[in-house]
């Protein structure tokens, strides 16, 4: 049973919670409407609080780091695709801004406790978890859960507090302070990137249990329902017409596309159909072939090293037969998730989320591994441990290549022969990383640190972007990814923007000034950056908006015009334009970037992409034959669009003032170096 909130009645609760784990004190802070109009919720709220309350230059794994959980502003308002929460903090991987987000059901439960954000400070002397509901919040002893895996922890906490309680927690990897640990929810879904699970472990915070029942009020619920109903119908399509025309419907729409500038449902509709049927696993086989997937630690070519006859073994058709049911996150009509059961093969798995494309690629294509059962097993191990599958796959790839080149031997690997495509060895090494056993201890903090610890030229095989392991989309295939991997405040992030994402989102239909950017261009146009900065910047602003309202990126890619702006105005009662909201998106992006500059980081200098990502030297064969990306060209185009100084990374003061961030410039050193003098924090 849920109740209408007594909160603001405008989509947000109007307060956040601060928890000092060192002193076990909990305090609420009220936020006014002006705050929400500047930062919304979710990622935006997190960016503002961390900017205000964190000292630059401190240890991400130390007590001075601040860890935040922030549901989106539209979560639980009746808007579709808006059930995500962000986790924010300083990343141990990049030593700069860190964030990750996750779907499931935690976000609405947290909001039903009457808070728009939780922020943890200090370090608890003993393992604790935070329990909160309608009545308030309390730190409770977590000793009995410490050491349990993430799925078991969640299960036991739900047994104690009931099915309505939703849990975000860490597994053993976070407890053991792995820099590539994530925050787990919904039995293996994860806010995986940035290493914030390790930050949570450093605070001795095992879990957050949210069991609220008060739904947030909105200004115009009827309008939200109308918008959601219309959008849902749009996604479901004209079923009768589709039945009548069958395949001809799409052919007809394609004809319309060619004959005029009329928007048709494609390609977003195709993507929606693929997601509905296979989830993101739909991409696995043909991305390996097309050059989208990195192969053999970014040094291989799918066509040659992992051809279709192998990649199809881990492709969607191979996986779909293990599905037992489909599911969707909170408020999602798409249902791109699925539960699988693995009754055959050497590893029985009773129940697990279907592996996502990123996991299938990181433990498949990247490792030349076509042993699907070993990927299932690794996925289950990592979900339980609370480890980022992308980063862990990259670490395994790094270790295999070190072994292949004699940098690591069986002496360092405790007798384990590390070979490409050896599923058993991959699983064994994954277990060692999870438990920090032997070589696993060296690898558990990501490839950058591992290569520093191992030395001997191993950095040549440590593929990362400013400390963050690169995701499973090759910028040589879609150079827009490269710009985002390099310039985004959380580098190496595949979900921010790219040409493919811009094409699917069709932001030109949402915002004046946004231009249509086709995903697949001529080669000459594809590798030209000087005319792409503005489009990529707008894509990035939009992504901030998406994360601030707790929306799912797929909701913006699957056809139609997602009515985010209308939902926001109906929830809050504001009358802001699409462009006003895009300004909020820019504000969030500029603030996250300023956080990094305050830490002495300049993406162009400090988030440089590994030469293999850029094609330096270029491949002599394959889809990316001869392609070398111009890193400085990417940086220049994006920096110009953002108003950032190329040499220092400093933002443009006039632009900050326009965004209402004039105080930010004063917090940055004029040369872009780390500002480490005494720091006046916002009082809690």
């Amino acid at each position: 049973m849920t109740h209408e909130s007594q909160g603001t009645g405008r989509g947000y609760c109007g307060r956040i919670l601060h928890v000092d784990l060192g002193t076990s004190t909990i305090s609420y802070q009220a936020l006014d409407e002006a705050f929400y109009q500047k930062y919304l919720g979710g990622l935006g709220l997190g960016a503002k609080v961390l900017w205000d309350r964190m000292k630059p230059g401190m240890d991400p794994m130390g007590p001075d780091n601040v860890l935040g959980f922030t549901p989106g502003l539209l979560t639980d308002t009746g808007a579709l695709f808006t059930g995500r929460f962000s986790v924010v903090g300083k990343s141990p991987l990049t030593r700069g801004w860190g964030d990750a987000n996750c779907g499931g059901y935690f976000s609405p439960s947290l909001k039903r406790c009457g808070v728009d954000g939780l922020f943890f400070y200090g370090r608890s002397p003993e393992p604790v978890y935070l329990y909160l509901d309608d009545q308030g919040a309390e730190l409770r002893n977590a000793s009995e859960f410490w050491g349990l895996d993430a799925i078991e922890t969640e299960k036991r906490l739900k047994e104690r507090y009931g099915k309505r309680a939703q849990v975000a927690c860490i597994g053993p990897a976070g407890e053991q302070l792995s820099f590539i640990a994530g925050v787990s929810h919904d039995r293996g879904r994860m806010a995986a990137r940035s290493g914030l699970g390790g930050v949570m472990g450093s605070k001795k915070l095992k879990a957050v249990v949210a069991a609220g029942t008060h739904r947030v009020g909105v200004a115009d619920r009827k309008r939200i329902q109308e918008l959601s109903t219309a959008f849902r119908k749009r996604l479901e399509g004209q079923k009768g017409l589709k039945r009548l025309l069958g395949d001809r419907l799409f052919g007809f729409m394609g004809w319309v596309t060619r004959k005029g500038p009329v928007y048709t449902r494609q390609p977003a509709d195709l993507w929606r159909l693929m997601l509905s049927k296979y989830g993101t696993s739909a991409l696995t086989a043909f991305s390996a072939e097309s050059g989208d997937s990195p192969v053999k630690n970014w040094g291989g070519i799918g066509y040659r090293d992992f051809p279709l006859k192998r990649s199809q073994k881990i492709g969607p058709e191979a996986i779909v037969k293990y599905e037992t049911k489909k599911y969707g996150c909170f408020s999602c009509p798409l249902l791109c998730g699925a539960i699988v059961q693995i009754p055959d093969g050497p590893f029985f798995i009773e129940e697990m989320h279907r592996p996502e494309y990123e996991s299938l690629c990181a433990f498949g294509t990247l490792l030349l591994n076509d042993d699907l059962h070993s990927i299932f097993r690794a996925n289950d191990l990592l979900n339980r441990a609370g480890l980022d599958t992308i980063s862990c796959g990259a670490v395994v790839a790094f270790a295999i290549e070190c072994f292949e080149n004699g940098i690591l031997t069986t002496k360092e690997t405790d007798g384990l022969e590390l070979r490409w495509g050896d599923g058993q060895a991959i699983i064994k090494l994954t277990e060692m990383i999870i438990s920090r056993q032997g070589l696993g201890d060296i690898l558990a903090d990501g490839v950058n640190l591992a290569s520093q610890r191992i030395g001997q030229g191993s950095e040549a095989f440590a593929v990362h972007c400013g400390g963050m392991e690169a995701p499973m989309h090759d910028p040589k295939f879609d150079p827009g990814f490269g710009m985002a991997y390099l310039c985004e405040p959380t580098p190496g992030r595949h979900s921010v923007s790219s040409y493919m994402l811009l094409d699917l989102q069709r932001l030109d239909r949402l915002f004046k000034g946004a231009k249509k950017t086709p995903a697949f261009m001529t080669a000459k146009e594809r590798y030209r950056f000087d005319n792409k900065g503005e489009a990529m910047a707008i894509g990035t602003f939009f992504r901030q908006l998406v994360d601030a309202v707790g929306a799912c990126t797929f909701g913006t890619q699957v056809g139609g015009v997602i009515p985010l702006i209308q939902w926001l105005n109906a929830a809050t009662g504001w009358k802001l334009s699409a462009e006003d909201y895009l300004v909020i998106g820019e504000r969030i992006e500029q603030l996250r970037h300023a956080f990094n500059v305050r830490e002495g980081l300049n993406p162009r200098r400090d988030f440089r992409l590994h030469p293999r990502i850029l094609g330096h030297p270029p491949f002599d064969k394959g889809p990316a034959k001869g392609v070398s990306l111009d890193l400085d060209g990417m940086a220049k185009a994006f920096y110009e669009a953002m108003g950032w100084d190329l040499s220092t990374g400093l933002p443009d003061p006039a632009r900050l003032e326009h965004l209402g961030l004039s105080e930010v410039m004063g917090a940055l050193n004029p040369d872009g170096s780390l500002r480490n003098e005494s720091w006046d924090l916002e009082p809690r």
Partner: protein
Amino acid sequence: MGPGAKINIRVRIFGAVNGQSVKTSGTVQLKEGDTVKRLFNRADAALGLRQEPFKQAFRQGIRPVVLLNGDRLEIPEEGGRRLADGDEVHVILTVAGG
């Protein structure tokens, strides 16, 4: 091989066409000197594909990825590229990232 001699091209097309998953492969016979464009015009009939995925590939608003012996071909710009006996052409109808 002289002019007019037969050449065999191995083709494979996969991905999504008209909202349906397509995964087909086979051999298309062309004449010496025939081009990639000619292959696209001939492939559906030669392989008996009623769905006509080769033709549809260019009609659904997505630029397909075309590989000739593993190397990317820019289509339609490089549609005039001549094919040789034993060439392998892959057509990948990809959409997005996950």
